[in-house]
């Protein structure tokens, strides 16, 4: 509650923040200018002008500090001064000596009171009467030739979807619902006929993998076959209801959204710091799908949950966690220029939000107008202003190489914790370690000062490296300590967004370069070509994220509903009605069934954005029920199955494969783990001492048998079981995964510890727990893995396999019992490794 008011309060205070924008302000009070004259100018003249003034001995790094313009424009390392924000100003950072590669003035660090003066000065907006004598650099100009009105009229995706008349079809008894009528009409127009219905077993397996990502049990299959024989429609409806109600549904469909949200538990890129609190967002997404949270609300919470009203602490916590969406992207934490870091992060946020929700590549307009879509740079920077006015709390330890770390948000109310309470002894140890490093750091810094004073530069350099090492250790230990309260309880920390204390409109950065800002700023706003008539202006006291979220989810927004309906279609059919699921722009694909897409988009909104209702409507259609059989004539007419004359044969994805393997071996643990392995490991940099070195080893050694959605996603360190089977690269927004078939997959299936362990477990399950032998064992094994009994041919092949394997094994010296056991293991492994196990028809 308090936090919400704090935000409001901060926003109100900064109502006049415009004048502290990055460009220039001429209005300073006398008092402020006196502060500059007495505290700042003398220091600049004495310590900086020698190398950074027009009249100085030389101009180093292209940086001039003798005018306000020059300071803001900066030199080779970028802008030196960000008025209003000392922490983002290179001049201040250099003075603090916290970055060994950037220490100014070079010989001695300025006293702390001078640093404090500079911080105060910059934070108050860097009042400074010094003007450039000449306008030595022409002002950056921006103009656009994009005709937004014309662009809007000419592209299908920018038209608001409307309902269409349901078409009449020649074949009268086929369609079960509207979807089928649109599909059938289109097929008939192309002189194609739909394939006939598939059989009960194939259908059940299909709908199980599609809805919950697991194979049906033998009992469920047999019961369904009976029910289907009586009434396929009723059997289907019941099965679908049951699956949608299962908690497994959210784990499956939440994972789809996590692909789009490029979910990961580390920062990726060069430093790759762990995100020990990212799992909260993962659980939020899973719960949202299980609760059938209306999709518009789901979007609003992810973009602006921190700005929504709430009735309970728990609701507030949930909404804060939702904004993790904007915080978990890749980050170049070692970027030295904080302003560059800020704009890179904002770019990632704009890119993710607009691609994920709108399938629009707005980020293409960062450096120039969008080359293909009617999106001028000014639209991009209108959105950039919204993020510039927001705080992204992503954490990470503050070290010499990571000056970009931020605080995290402590959640209110009763929320789950990442793990158990830390035993008192360990807490004390951690505190002691923290104190010890802090002490070492103080001592080393003292020695550095002494060495500098005595002129021993070699010693000073050496000690400086040592102190940097201390800073790094201290950063990691401190961030880990801060995750606990004084009793050793884990604090309920989260990655989340908040509105900033200061609100900014962004200038346009010509060519995307932070040094080339235009003088004028762009009022915060959205992408103009995507128009809704119910847009509300952004109040002067808010960042605009909430208004952006409302604009995205307006029923009049032509993209959002269409984009999600299309994603859903892709996840159920293996190809979207628009195949370029993440790009609805002019370079994307056109819809194969534009009217059906519109109809579904409107229906989705009518159904109050209920994802479960949408899915049910699709999977109970006749279209979804078709078999996947090859047909020569139809293939010749439509080889890519654009008209949906059959169902596509699909390989199950990496998670489903891993989960299915654990399921048929009886090893799967369906409980949600508490937090995440990454949370348990805490803060650190991946691959370096103290942080996770191999997820693969960890999973193997700990017999991690939870569902794959709970496997930690560390950027650039995915376990084989996911990586090899085309898991979505968590650095990119990816609504459609690749399906590759490469030998490293086969090697994994043949030789990996994971397959062998699970094959043994399955073999033990069959022989020991189910007490099966011979034909019955074979029958059950096939049924478990393929959701059907073996064919006669498969039975013969299997019998021959056992004979051949056992005799070969005996020839190599194994006794009968050993040979039989090994034959059983490899038989189970063969079923898991075979194509049918990981393909659905």
């Amino acid at each position, binding site marked *: 509650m308090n936090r919400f008011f704090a935000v409001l309060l901060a926003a109100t205070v900064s109502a006049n923040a415009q004048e502290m924008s990055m460009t220039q302000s001429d209005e300073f009070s006398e008092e402020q200018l006196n502060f500059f004259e007495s505290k700042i100018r003398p220091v600049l003249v004495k310590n900086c002008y020698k190398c950074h003034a027009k009249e100085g001995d030389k101009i*180093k790094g292209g940086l001039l500090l003798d005018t306000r313009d020059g300071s803001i424009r900066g030199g080779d390392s970028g802008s030196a001064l960000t008025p209003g924000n000392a922490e983002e100003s290179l001049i201040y950072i250099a003075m603090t000596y916290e970055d060994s590669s950037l220490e100014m003035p070079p010989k001695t660090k300025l006293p702390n009171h001078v640093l404090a003066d500079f911080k105060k000065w910059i934070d108050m907006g860097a009042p400074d009467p010094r003007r450039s004598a000449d306008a030595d650099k022409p002002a950056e100009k921006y103009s656009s030739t994009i005709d937004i009105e014309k662009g809007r009229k000419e592209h299908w995706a920018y038209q608001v979807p409307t309902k269409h008349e349901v078409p009449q079809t020649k074949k009268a008894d086929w369609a079960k619902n509207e979807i089928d009528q649109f599909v059938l009409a289109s097929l008939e127009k192309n002189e194609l006929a739909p394939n006939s219905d598939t059989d009960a077993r194939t259908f059940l397996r299909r709908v199980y993998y599609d809805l919950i990502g697991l194979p049906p049990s033998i009992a469920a299959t047999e019961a369904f076959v009976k029910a289907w024989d009586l009434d396929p429609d009723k059997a289907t409806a019941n099965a679908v209801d049951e699956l949608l109600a299962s908690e497994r549904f959210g784990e499956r469909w939440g994972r789809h959204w996590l692909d789009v949200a490029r979910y990961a538990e580390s920062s990726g890129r*060069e430093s790759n710091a762990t995100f020990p609190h990212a799992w909260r967002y993962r659980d939020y997404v899973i719960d949202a799908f299980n609760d059938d949270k209306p999709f518009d609300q789901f979007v609003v919470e992810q973009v602006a949950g921190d700005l929504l009203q709430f009735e309970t602490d728990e609701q507030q916590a949930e909404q804060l966690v939702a904004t993790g969406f904007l915080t978990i992207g890749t980050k170049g934490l070692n970027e030295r220029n904080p302003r560059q870091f800020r704009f890179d992060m904002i770019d990632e946020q704009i890119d993710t939000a607009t691609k994920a929700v709108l399938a629009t590549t707005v980020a293409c307009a960062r450096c120039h107008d969008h080359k293909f879509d009617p999106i001028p740079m000014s639209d991009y920077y209108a959105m950039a202003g919204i993020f510039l006015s927001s705080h992204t709390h992503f954490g990470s330890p503050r070290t010499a190489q990571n000056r970009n770390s931020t605080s995290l948000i402590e959640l209110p109310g009763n929320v789950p914790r990442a793990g158990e309470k830390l035993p008192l002894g360990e807490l004390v140890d951690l505190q002691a370690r923290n104190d010890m490093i802090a002490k070492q750091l103080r001592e080393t810094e003292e020695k550095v000062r002494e060495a500098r004073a005595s002129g021993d530069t070699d010693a000073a350099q050496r000690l400086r490296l040592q102190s940097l090492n201390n800073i790094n250790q201290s950063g990691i230990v401190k961030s880990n300590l801060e995750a606990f309260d004084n009793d050793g309880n884990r604090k309920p920390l989260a990655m989340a967004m908040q509105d900033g204390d200061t609100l900014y409109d962004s200038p346009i950065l010509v060519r995307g370069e932070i040094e080339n800002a235009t003088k004028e700023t762009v009022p915060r706003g959205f992408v103009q070509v995507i128009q809704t008539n119910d847009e509300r202006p952004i109040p002067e006291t808010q960042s605009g994220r909430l208004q952006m979220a409302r604009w995205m989810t307006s029923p009049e927004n032509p993209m959002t509903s269409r984009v999600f309906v299309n994603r859903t279609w892709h996840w159920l059919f293996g190809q979207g009605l628009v195949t370029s699921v993440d790009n609805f722009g002019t*370079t994307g694909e056109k819809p194969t069934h534009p009217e059906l897409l519109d109809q579904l988009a409107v229906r989705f909104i009518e159904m109050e954005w209920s994802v479960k209702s949408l899915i049910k409507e699709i999977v109970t259609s006749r279209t979804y029920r078709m078999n996947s059989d090859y047909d020569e004539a139809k*293939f010749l007419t439509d080889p890519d199955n654009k008209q949906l004359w059959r169902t596509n044969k699909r390989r199950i994805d990496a998670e489903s494969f891993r989960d299915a393997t654990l399921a048929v071996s009886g090893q799967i643990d369906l409980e949600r783990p508490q937090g995440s392995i990454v949370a348990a490991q805490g803060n650190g940099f991946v691959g370096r001492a103290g942080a996770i070195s191999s997820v693969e080893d960890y999973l193997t050694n700990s017999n991690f048998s939870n569902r794959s959605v709970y496997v930690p996603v560390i950027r650039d360190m995915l376990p084989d079981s996911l990586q090899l089977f085309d898991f979505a690269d968590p650095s990119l927004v990816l609504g459609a995964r690749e399906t590759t078939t490469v030998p490293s997959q086969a090697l994994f299936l043949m030789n990996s510890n994971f397959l062998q362990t699970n094959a043994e477990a399955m073999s033990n399950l069959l022989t020991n727990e189910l007490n099966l032998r011979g034909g019955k064992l074979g029958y059950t094994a096939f049924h478990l893995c393929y959701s059907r009994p073996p064919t006669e041919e498969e039975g013969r092949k299997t019998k021959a396999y056992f004979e051949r394997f056992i005799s070969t094994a005996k020839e190599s010296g194994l006794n009968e019992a050993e040979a039989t056991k090994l034959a059983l293991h490899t038989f189970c492994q063969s079923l898991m490794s075979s*194509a049918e196990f990981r393909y659905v028809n």
Partner: protein
Amino acid sequence: MNSDLPFLPSRRTALQATASGFGYMAFSALSTMQAEQQKSPLTAKAPHFTPKAKRVIFLCMQGGPSHVDTFDYKPQLTADTGKNAKGFAKLLGSPWEFKQHGESGLPISSLFPNLAEHADDLCLINSMHTDLPNHPQAFVQMHTGNFQFVRPSLGAWTLYGLGTENDSLPGFINLAPPNGNGGAQNYGSAFLPAVYQGTPVGQAQRGALLRGGGAAPTPTISNIKNSKLSPELQRVQLDYIKSLNIEKLKRDRVHPEIEGVIESFELAFRMQDEVPTVLDFNSEPENIREMYGLNDRATQGFGTQCLTARRMAEAGVRFIEVNQGNWDHHRNLSNAMEQNCGAIDKPIAGLLADLKQRDMLKDTLIVWSGEFGRTPHGQNGNGRDHNNKGYTSWMAGGGVNGGQRYGSTDEYGYQAIENKVHTHDWHATILHLMGLDHTKLTYNYAGRDFRLTDVHGHVLKDIIS
């Protein structure tokens, strides 16, 4: 028709079957047509024009080796040692003597006595420059052209453009890649299909990197060996899996992906044979082992990698990356350079000589580069700072004019001034030598055609023979 199926083929017949294309189901012209469309993305493809080189061995020097102490001869720097130049700290002339080598008289420092004997094969590109003097960004830019976004790596683009020639090995192999500085991103495929990503073999050992030189990393490919089954038993198992897959294929009638699955098991099975063979040096005669420095602790590590690279090149791998770290010499330059150059000098010389005697140097492009160079002025007395504005990379073999210095830096080696070569130009040239036009090698992702060189890049025509 079923009786036509090669039901339990021997390894050799399986090879023939796959070599002749999807032979399992000679279904109809239709099936073949569909199969053609979806044939293995790794199948060798025609280049854009006649290539000079068929394969690349990239000797990747992580950390930024000093150019003024190795391949960029700066007499003025030596003469002005100790002076304050251009407002920087005191200039530090190279402690090592440069001498002219070969008929071409290329100046190379005494740190590379063995490599210097191949001076007439080397094309020193003295005018390299890159965008930033920070390791992570520069290292990623060297590999992908872009440090701001996740982009496909040079090796992945090459494989995407050309496919590979050995169906028993992956087409892009990265030996002991470092984990940091972008890690897998440096050999990743980003938005290109995953099949084009590099297969890492062996891992850089952190301790070894810290110690410098270091023990030989043991090259491995994950899951290459079965811990429980003899090859005979595994063949029995794979025959069974294949029979199950063929049953599935029969039921599905036309399903190219299943044919791909069947193929991939056969390739994997072959890899189990081939990979350990490629990685087993026992067949190499003593003189070859000596050539690569396998008998000396100092050169053993990098020598192992170079010999592995040659064996893989010989086996038909398209792009091989070899790694040596620990070039970040802010201090202790004189010792560390001796150690590091000592570790690679003999192995690289051995690699060049060995390729030449096998007549493979002419179509194997060798590229040596760090992510940037170092400053002419000293740091910490006996070290050098990062320098992205001027540094040296070299190429040899594969259609490159040897015995040549291309471009130059200023009198001290601060920045490239003549014929400047940006990372994008360097990429464009490597692709060109492989027969690929960097402006035409594109991939459509999210509505845009992407290139390795983005909108940049000029081919260095003058270095091509």
